[in-house]
């Protein structure tokens, strides 16, 4: 971390572009209604994440981030999307179109959340780090986290809720990668966490399907009501 990474240098611009790309993909996830497209966008986001991790490994000259990049690529750009596609075929819901917030409304909400995250992160980290890049990475990561949470709230289909959760987790990895000196253990564990969560949710889908013949979480709400 010898030289200052500032606006205008290649390393800064590259990292900025990759972070921005992930944010744009999060927005795309937010308004996209076709399940197949959502999974593809998610795979694309995983690829950008892998590229961002690799680029961070290059500018921080820390080889372990390459490992992170490979893990992210293997898990988020390949394995999970393939598995999700398989689930979609298996559950026979390729054609389903989901209700979500309208494009306009979700964009407005998303922009508000991004503004909020920047307003929170930029002043609070002012004293802690003189480097502008990690601070902006952190702000982008927080926005992705909030957007993922928003997606989980606005969707009814369990599968798209899972994708929201996974993109939320991408934001976490982006934050972890952007901070110099973060040990590899954390990234490995969080990657595993995603896999575990994925398995849990996979089991969950089958249980819902067995019980209700649908993946709509509204059916779960009725379970609560019967006990009332």
């Amino acid at each position, binding site marked *: 971390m010898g030289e200052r990474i500032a606006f205008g240098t290649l390393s800064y611009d590259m990292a900025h572009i990759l972070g921005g790309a992930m944010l744009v993909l999060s927005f795309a996830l937010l308004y996209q209604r076709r399940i197949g497209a959502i999974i593809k966008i998610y795979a694309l986001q995983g690829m950008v994440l892998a590229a961002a991790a690799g680029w961070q490994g290059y500018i921080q000259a820390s080889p372990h981030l390459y490992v992170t990049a490979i893990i992210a690529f293997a898990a988020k750009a390949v394995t999970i999307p393939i598995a999700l596609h398989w689930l979609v075929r298996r559950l026979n819901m390729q054609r389903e179109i989901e209700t979500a917030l309208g494009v306009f409304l979700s964009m407005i909400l998303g922009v508000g959340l991004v503004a*909020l995250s920047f307003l929170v992160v930029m002043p609070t980290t002012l004293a802690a780090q003189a480097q502008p890049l990690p601070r902006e990475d952190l702000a982008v990561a927080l926005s992705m986290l909030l957007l993922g949470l928003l997606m989980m709230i606005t969707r009814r289909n369990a599968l798209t809720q899972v994708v929201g959760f996974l993109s939320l987790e991408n934001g976490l990895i982006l934050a972890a990668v952007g901070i110099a000196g973060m040990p590899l253990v954390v990234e490995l564990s969080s990657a595993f966490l995603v896999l575990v969560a994925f398995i849990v949710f996979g089991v969950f889908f089958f249980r819902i399907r067995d019980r209700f013949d649908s993946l709509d979480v509204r059916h779960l709400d009725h379970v609560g009501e019967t006990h009332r």
Partner: protein
Amino acid sequence: MSALALPLMLAIILGLCGLGIVGAIRTRWAWLVHQGSAILCSLGALLSLIALILPGSAALALPIGLPGKAMQLALDPLALVFLLLLFVTATAASLFALEQHAAEEARAIPFFPVFIAAMALTLLAADAFTLLCGFELMSLASWATILYRHEEDRSRSAALFYLGMAGFSAACLIPAFALLGGGAPDFAAMRAMPPEGWRAGFVLALVVLGAGSKAGLAPLHLWLPLAHPAAPSHISALMSGAMTKVALYVIVRVLFDLCGPAQPIWFGAPLLVMGAASAVLGGLRANMESDLKAVLAASTIENVGFIAIGLGIAFLARGADLAPLAALALAGALFHVMTHGVFKTLLFLGAGAAWHGGGSRMLQRLGGLVHRMPITTACMIAGCIGLAALPPGPGFASEWVLFQAILAAPRIGGLALQTSLTVLAVLMAMATALAATAAIRLLGVAFLGRPRTPRAAGAQEVGFTACAAMLGLVALCALMGLFPTAILGLIEPAIRQMLRAGLSGQIGVVGIQPGAEVPGYAALIIASLLAAGGVAIALVLRRWAVAGHRRGPAWAGGFAAPPAWLPFGDPATQYGGASFAQPLRRALATAVLAAREEVDMPRPGDTRAGRLSVALRDPAEPWLFAPIGRWREKATSLADAMQFLTIRQTLSVMFALLVLLLAGIAVMEAW
């Protein structure tokens, strides 16, 4: 002396806890528990008396406590004054309890010594943790004794209410101590940095609410007339005589000692307002209740109000740098703590004796006990002299000092303060008059007249030890009434400790002399004058009265002519508790207690009896407790609804909270 007394006090506390365990293992060894606690408590009383006469302070750190913090005990004059009262009343209560009357009272046995030990621990504590431990143990032990007749719905609901109030006082006291001393729990650290500004205001509010609810200050007084009758008599005696005083001790300890001398003048205002409300409400309710013990509990509210007024005046005077007046007011308050503690214990024990002998606590079922229970009646008369504040009784002496303080108080401040203090003095005078009426009603209806039920007609005097306990308290009452200067001398080190100024020159050899221009009070002279007057009247009557006596018809104040089948008249037609209270009920309680009388008069030709029913409602109930109950219902139904939110709704709530938190951070950062 204190250095020696403190370990001994600790040994007494441990011994009492051991007795509690013995009582829990073997209920048949009740005599051992009560004898043991009588012995230990009398030792404790002796020890505190000696330590008070030979002043000094001591501190001791126990090897147990919070992690890294030892529990601290300390013995100083203020604690000793309250310890003396506690151990004296506990000795009498233990002696009284030696005659266990009802089998179910055995359930309260293990909790009785623990209750005393917890109060002693509270008084000895020198750090917040120990004090709160003692305070909460005291609440829990007394709660268990209230439940001793748990088959009755009334006992259960009283105990539940009591537990709720105890939880409330804990919820107030714990943050109050957390605000003091910058987080360090020991009192020395709290004294070193007294609270200022809003912090002091919060401490004041929390302590007055937390300890005041335990002491019975209005509007948090509702539990007393419910809980005191529910406990066994000797324990309700302790609850009224000692436990409310322990709560007042916490107020004095925190507000006078730990908050330091530099507090503003308005610090006394909440105590004055709540004290005045308690005095009037308690005095009025004491005239309305029909249960012997509820009458006494209501009068405890009134007396606690008096003590709070004394403390409030002391605050005002200290804030205005009037040290002699502050000392006089605090002396009045502490003196009234002592006298009320003793005579109220005596009255509760007497009420317990009447309950045991007459088979009921209800005024309308007693009467004429003077013939069958002469010793108990004599003791009750002695106690009622204290309650009614008649000279030369103990209550008169202490209330006289309090009144001197409040009559001298208007020179503290401007016109507004003077006006409100005058109103306060008028309210106090009214409360005193109400207390006197209540004492007359209690004595006249329950102990004089004719028995209203066969059970009361066949009442039996209580046994030797119970009589001894009551007579001992009567002797103490007489001592305190006749030698108020001696008691004030005992209290003075505590006043000096709290105010750094004593009563010098205000206590004479024979009487109390608050100032050069004020007439003093010399109890012995008044007593001898009264005695001389009484003897003179007796001699005159003996010389000139008609010799001999004859029995005539009773004064017909509602006492109907005897029907043929009841040759001695129907005793139920006597002037009873409700009839005695009627003028007051119509004059005052209609406005204050929302008293309503309903007459159900049968139509001509209808043979059923006419009924007059009376309903009373304490103002704290509709204005404070009912809204709290409604809010609680709403809060629980809201929490219940949270449980049935859908997954997305739950997530949305979390999301909204997160966004709100972030927005808050952003706003604070931008600021």
